[in-house]
């Protein structure tokens, strides 16, 4: 594999090695580091020493059942809204790239509308829709209906939240998915078609898996953004994490501690997403580079000398490099 290049790099060039080498000094870096450390120490000291943040209140509410319910609801909202958003986004992206002007025009109009109005407006719109729309029916257009219902029974705070967040996200995801699809070389489609693959299977088997490399980083961004965007549903009174915290501090007036509690949960959830995104990106990067860099876990194992069994296949040359020099 690429081990030839790696070994060449680890062996120092022979010529100037006989003489002592004086590395370049970086005094500016030291000054900068000291300044940063002092400021960090001051901040840490304030965090611990101040009574204003009332850490005991933060800890008390961190695992409060109401807060945990809020956390669960935030996760559920985020997951469902993102699933709707991604699925809708891919469909809209394919529609926008369609040759049929009506189909691509419809997708364009959808994206234009849902990106062009605030999410908050959309959330309120869905929630208050039953006040003007009294009946929804499914049947032949302009003909008989087989099924009809009153929106009041369908639109709850939860379903309005899902509709508002998911449909809005679909518009953003559409552009992300379109960028991903466009990033795949035309030659890939041609090669697949020359092999007799249909448009659909070309898209599913060849184009989308490659587009995912471009789609995932901004989708991670969108997911993190969605996690926090769910807090907007306080406007329609749905009790997710932030609304729950607000209700509690509205009663106890411990505003800052409860906001810290909520923030700690948001940070925790975001961090979990980071890990998920890292491994997802790695999966779709297969074949994109000659050898994938080792994961942090593999790196730690390699440094502790446990790397032998853990790092395998394409990872081996790079992880041996981290240990020091290739053992042979």
């Amino acid at each position: 594999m690429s081990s030839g290049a790696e070994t060449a790099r680890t062996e120092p060039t022979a010529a100037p090695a006989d003489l002592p080498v004086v590395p370049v000094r970086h005094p500016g870096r030291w000054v900068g580091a000291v300044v940063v450390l002092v400021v960090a120490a001051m901040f840490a000291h304030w965090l611990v020493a101040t009574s204003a943040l009332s850490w005991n209140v933060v800890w008390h509410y961190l695992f409060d059942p109401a807060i945990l319910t809020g956390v669960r609801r935030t996760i559920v909202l985020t997951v469902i809204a993102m699933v709707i958003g991604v699925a809708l986004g891919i469909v809209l992206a394919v529609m926008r790239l369609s040759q049929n002007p009506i189909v691509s025009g419809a997708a364009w109009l959808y994206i234009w509308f849902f990106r062009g109005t605030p999410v908050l407006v959309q959330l309120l719109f869905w929630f208050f829709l039953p006040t003007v729309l009294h009946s929804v029916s499914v049947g032949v257009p302009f003909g008989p209906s087989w099924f009809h219902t009153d929106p009041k029974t369908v639109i709850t705070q939860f379903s309005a939240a899902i509709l508002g967040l998911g449909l809005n996200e679909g518009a953003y995801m559409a552009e992300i998915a379109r960028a991903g699809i466009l990033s795949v070389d035309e030659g890939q489609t041609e090669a697949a078609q020359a092999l007799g693959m249909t448009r659909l299977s070309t898209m599913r088997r060849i184009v989308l898996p490659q587009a995912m490399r471009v789609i995932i980083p901004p989708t991670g961004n969108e997911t993190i953004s969605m996690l926090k965007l769910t807090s907007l549903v306080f406007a329609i009174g749905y009790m997710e994490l932030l609304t729950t915290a607000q209700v509690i501090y509205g009663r106890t007036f411990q505003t800052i501690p409860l906001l810290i509690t909520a923030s700690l949960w948001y940070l925790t959830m975001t961090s979990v997403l980071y890990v998920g995104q890292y491994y997802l990106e790695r999966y779709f990067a297969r074949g994109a580079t000659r050898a994938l860099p080792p994961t942090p876990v593999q790196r730690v194992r390699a440094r502790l000398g446990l790397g032998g069994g853990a790092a395998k296949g394409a990872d081996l040359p790079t992880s041996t490099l981290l240990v020091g020099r290739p053992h042979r």
Partner: protein
Amino acid sequence: MTEPMVRSAGVHKNFGRQEVLKGIDLEVQRGEVMCIIGPSGSGKSTFLRCINHLEKVDAGKLYVDGELVGYEQRGEKLYELRDNEVARKRAEIGMVFQRFNLFPHMTALENITEAPICVRGLDKKAAAERGRQLLARVGLEGREDAYPRQLSGGQQQRVAIARALAMDPKLMLFDEPTSALDPELVGEVLDVMHDLATEMQMTMVVVTHEIGFAREVGDALVFMDDGVIVEAGPPKDVIANPQHERTKAFLSKVL
């Protein structure tokens, strides 16, 4: 007389206002290797792409194995074929591209087995077995699990040839298969193509700049310039004794 594998009659193709093919007439017999040479922009690649309908013919008729490409004639009308019918016909024609166009997210073996599984519905084990044989045929046994980016250009192009062969094509199209390769890698690809022509008696249309290959392996040679066929004939005659000024000028530059 048997029907030729490819028959082209007055094929025209325009890109916008520019006329790229101005009436191409030629026949490729079964088992024959036809090489198409010519300066860049002469329309030779475009013609090749018309054969498997990657480009739509604007006027004239193009037949592969006796069947019209891209259309069906019923009475006095030509009916455009549906996507899946076009796809079915393409499945019988192998194509090798200048830039390989291997699927980078799949291993060498997966590249080869993808179409047989997805298009022909072959089961995975049988497809993999056949894939291994084909890789061995192009001299790449043991590289089944390599991703395209881990292979050299010449190796990638050989995988691409194996990928096309996996569909058991009746005709193979090569679009400048060695133009993107380093000079020392050209030979290994030409060897595989030579093997296809002599061992498998594959019908091949090869757009190329490799005059040596055309002379040794080709049964027919066509020189195209500016969207028309300037000269055609047995390769040795055309190369040794070109009749037209434009052919002479081109050959003097590439030989």
